[in-house]
C-alpha cells in the first residue's frame, strides 16, 4: 500500500487494524486526558512494528465499527474546526519529537467519501534500531494489540541484519535527480554571475565535484537513502524560499542598471542584465528537483494538501522570507545609485565641456556654387571620475555627429578612448577604457569632430542672373555674373574653394568686400574660376565676374 487512500480503502474493506495500521475515532484524542502518552505509545509501537516500511495512524475511523466518522470531537457531535486541527497537529509533532529517537512522520489530510480524515504516515524502524517513549519504554504490535518489548525482544531487534537497500529504488533515483538538479541550478547560477563563460568551462566539473563530496560525506556519515530523502524533503521549502529570493533581487538589479546611464552619463554592457532570466532558470531547477523528490511519495492532491497545511504552520517563516525578499530587492535596487554616489566600482562623468565652433570659424565650400556645404569643428572634453575598484573595463559615452568628416581624439589623460562610428563614418560615441596604471581619480578625453550646418543659417548667398554680354564667331560667350555673400553667423566665415564658372584665363573681377577679403582665381585644370574668402562677423561681399566661356566648355 503506497498511498493514504489505499490504506483507508483497505481498512474499510477489511474492518480491522494491523501491526502497522491503527485507527482512532477522533483527533481530539491527542488532547484528551492521558491522550498524549497513549498517542506516544501508539506511535512507538507502530514505528517498531513497521520494519523498513511505513506505518499508518488514521484519525476519523471508529475503531470498533470501522465506520468513517470524519473530523468529529470526542462526543461525536461537532466537527473539529480547522484551527483546532492545526493545534492538534502541533501537539502531535511535539509528542513524536519526544520519542527516542524522534519518529519521523508525515501529516496528511484526506477527503474520503465526503469525510475528512487525518492520516499520519509513520516511518518504520530500520533493522538494528528501535524506538522508545520518553519514559524509556519500547512498544510494539502484534496484529492489532500493543505489547511492551522486553529485553529479549530488544536484543532480537538489535541483532537484526541490515536490510539490502534497493539501489535503484524510486526514492534513491528521485534523491539523485534532486541533488543533481540542485547542484546544477545553484552553483551554475553563481558561476554565471561571476562570468558566463565559466558555466561552460567549469559548470560540469564543479557539479560532479560537489556530487562526489555529497556522496563521500553520506558514505562516511552512514546516511541512509530514506533518511537523506526525508531530510531533503523537510528542508526543500527553505531551499525553495532561499532560491526564490534571487528572482526579486535580479529583477531589481536590472532596474538599477537601467538607472546607470541617467545617473552617470555612461553606458556599459553587462551580462547581469539577463540575471532575471537566469534566476528563473535556477528557481525552475529547484522546483523540478522538489517535484521529482516528492514524486515517489505523494500524489498531486496530497501535495496540494501538504502545501495548504504547511503554509499556516509556517507563517512566521513566510513573514521573515517576505522581509528578506524586500531587503534583497531594496539592496539590489540601491546598488547603482549607491555606487554612483560613491564611485566605488563604476565610473561616472563629472564634467563635460562642449566648445562649438572651437576655432571660431565656419567653413563653406563646394564643387558647385549651387551645392554648397557649411561645417564647423567642435570640441568636446569629457572628464571622468574613475572608481576606487574598477569593475567595468570599458564604458560608452554618447557623442553624435552628423558629419562624415574626420573626427579624432586630441587629448586624453588617465583613460584611453576609441571612436565609435556608424557605417557611414559618422561619430556615434566614445568607448572609454579605464587605464589601470593611473593613480588619479580624475581622467579626461578631448575629441574634435565636425558638424554639418545649414548654409542658409550662417550666410546669405545670392547669385544674380547671368548676363550674356556678347557671342564671338568661334562660339565663345562673354558672360557677366554678380553674386553677394553676407556673414550672418556670430563667427568668422572661411569660404572656399567654391568652384564658380568654367572660363578661359581671361576674366575681370569687380568686388566690394567689407570686413574680410575675397579672391577669385583661375585653375588651369578644368578651366575653373574659384573663390576663396574670409569674412569676419557682419562681413560681406558683392562680386561681379566677367568671363569668357569657350564653346567647347
Amino acid at each position: 500500500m503506497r498511498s493514504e487512500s489505499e490504506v483507508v480503502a483497505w481498512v474499510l474493506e477489511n474492518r480491522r487494524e494491523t501491526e502497522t495500521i491503527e485507527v482512532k475515532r477522533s483527533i481530539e484524542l491527542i488532547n484528551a486526558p492521558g491522550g498524549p502518552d497513549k498517542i506516544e505509545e501508539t506511535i512507538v509501537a507502530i514505528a517498531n512494528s513497521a520494519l523498513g516500511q511505513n506505518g499508518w495512524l488514521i484519525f476519523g475511523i471508529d475503531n470498533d465499527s470501522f465506520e468513517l466518522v470524519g473530523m468529529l470531537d470526542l462526543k461525536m457531535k461537532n466537527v473539529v474546526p480547522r484551527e483546532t486541527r492545526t493545534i492538534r497537529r502541533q501537539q502531535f509533532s511535539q509528542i513524536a519529537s519526544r520519542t527516542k529517537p524522534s519518529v519521523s512522520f508525515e501529516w496528511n489530510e484526506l477527503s474520503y467519501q465526503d469525510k475528512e480524515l487525518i492520516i499520519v504516515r509513520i516511518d518504520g524502524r530500520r533493522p538494528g534500531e528501535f524506538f522508545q517513549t520518553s519514559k524509556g519504554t519500547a512498544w510494539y504490535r502484534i496484529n492489532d494489540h500493543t505489547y511492551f518489548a522486553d529485553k529479549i525482544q530488544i536484543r532480537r531487534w538489535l541483532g537484526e541484519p541490515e536490510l539490502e537497500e534497493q539501489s535503484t529504488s524510486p526514492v534513491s533515483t528521485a534523491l539523485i535527480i534532486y541533488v543533481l538538479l540542485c547542484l546544477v541550478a545553484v552553483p551554475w547560477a553563481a558561476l554565471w554571475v561571476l562570468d558566463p563563460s565559466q558555466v561552460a568551462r567549469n559548470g560540469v566539473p564543479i557539479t560532479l565535484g560537489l556530487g562526489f563530496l555529497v556522496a563521500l560525506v553520506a558514505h562516511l556519515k552512514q546516511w541512509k537513502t530514506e533518511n537523506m530523502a526525508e531530510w531533503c524533503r523537510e528542508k526543500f521549502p527553505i531551499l525553495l524560499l532561499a532560491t526564490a529570493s534571487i528572482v526579486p533581487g535580479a529583477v531589481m538589479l536590472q532596474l538599477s542598471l537601467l538607472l546607470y546611464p541617467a545617473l552617470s552619463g555612461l553606458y556599459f554592457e553587462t551580462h547581469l542584465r539577463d540575471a532575471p532570466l537566469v534566476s528563473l532558470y535556477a528557481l525552475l531547477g529547484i522546483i523540478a528537483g522538489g517535484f521529482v523528490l516528492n514524486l515517489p511519495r505523494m500524489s498531486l492532491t496530497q501535495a496540494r494538501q501538504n502545501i495548504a497545511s504547511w503554509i499556516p504552520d509556517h507563517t512566521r517563516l513566510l513573514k521573515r522570507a517576505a522581509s528578506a525578499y524586500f531587503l534583497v530587492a531594496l539592496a539590489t535596487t540601491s546598488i547603482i545609485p549607491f555606487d554612483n554616489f560613491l564611485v566605488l566600482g563604476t565610473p561616472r562623468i563629472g564634467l563635460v565641456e562642449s566648445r562649438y565652433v572651437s576655432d571660431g570659424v565656419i567653413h563653406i565650400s563646394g564643387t558647385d556654387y549651387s551645392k554648397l556645404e557649411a561645417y564647423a569643428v567642435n570640441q568636446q572634453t569629457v572628464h571622468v571620475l574613475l572608481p576606487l575598484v574598477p569593475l567595468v573595463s570599458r564604458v560608452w559615452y554618447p557623442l553624435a555627429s552628423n558629419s562624415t568628416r574626420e573626427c579624432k581624439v586630441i587629448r586624453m589623460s588617465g583613460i584611453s578612448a576609441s571612436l565609435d562610428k556608424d557605417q557611414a563614418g559618422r561619430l556615434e560615441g566614445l568607448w572609454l577604457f579605464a587605464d589601470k596604471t593611473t593613480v588619479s581619480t580624475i581622467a579626461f578625453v578631448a575629441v574634435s569632430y565636425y558638424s554639418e550646418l545649414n548654409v542658409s543659417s550662417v550666410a546669405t548667398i545670392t547669385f544674380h542672373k547671368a548676363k550674356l554680354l556678347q557671342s564671338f564667331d568661334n562660339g565663345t560667350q562673354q558672360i557677366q555674373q554678380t553674386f553677394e555673400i553676407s556673414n550672418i553667423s556670430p563667427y568668422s566665415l572661411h569660404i572656399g574653394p567654391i568652384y564658380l564658372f568654367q572660363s578661359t584665363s581671361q576674366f575681370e573681377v569687380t568686388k566690394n568686400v567689407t570686413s574680410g577679403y575675397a579672391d577669385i582665381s583661375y585653375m588651369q585644370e578644368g578651366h575653373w574660376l574659384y573663390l576663396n574668402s574670409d569674412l569676419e562677423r557682419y562681413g560681406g561681399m558683392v562680386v561681379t565676374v566677367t568671363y569668357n566661356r569657350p564653346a567647347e566648355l
Partner: protein
Amino acid sequence: MGISRTVLAVVAILLVLATSIAYQHEQIPTLVEVAVKLRLWRGTGYGSGSLEDITLRLARDTRATFDNVTLVPTQEYNYTSNVHWRLLIVANESASGNVEWEYEVLPSAGKVGVYAGVVSTLLDLKGTYTVWVVLYSIHDGSILNVSSFSERIHTY
C-alpha cells in the same frame, strides 16, 4: 539591562560603514576649477590682452583663487602705468541660478610691459551652464572689453 553584544557589533559595523562612506564621498571632486591663462599688454594710457587658454577641471580642494600674473622680464620698460584688468566669469542658464565671479588683475609691478600668468578660481556648479569668460582693461574709469570666450558645460 545591558547592551547586548549583537547591538554593539551592529553599531560598530554601522560606524565603520558610515565613516568609510563619508571618507570616500569626501574624495570625490564636486567643484569646477576654471584656470584662465592670460597675456596682457600694458601701456602708459592703454591696456589690452587676450585669453590664451581656458582650462576646466574637476577639483575638490578649497583653494578659491590663484593669481600668478607677473611682468614678463624681457618686455620690461621703466615707464609706469595704472592700467589694470578685470576678469569676469559668468555661468548662467541653469535652474539652480547664476554664478558670477569678478576678479581684478592688478599687477604688483607698476610698470608698462607685457604681463602673463594664470588666474584660477573654483566654481560650485551643477547642471548645464554656458560659461562666459570676459577680460576687460580698465584705465581712468574707462572699461574696454578686450577678449572673451564661452563654452557649454554640463556637470553631473
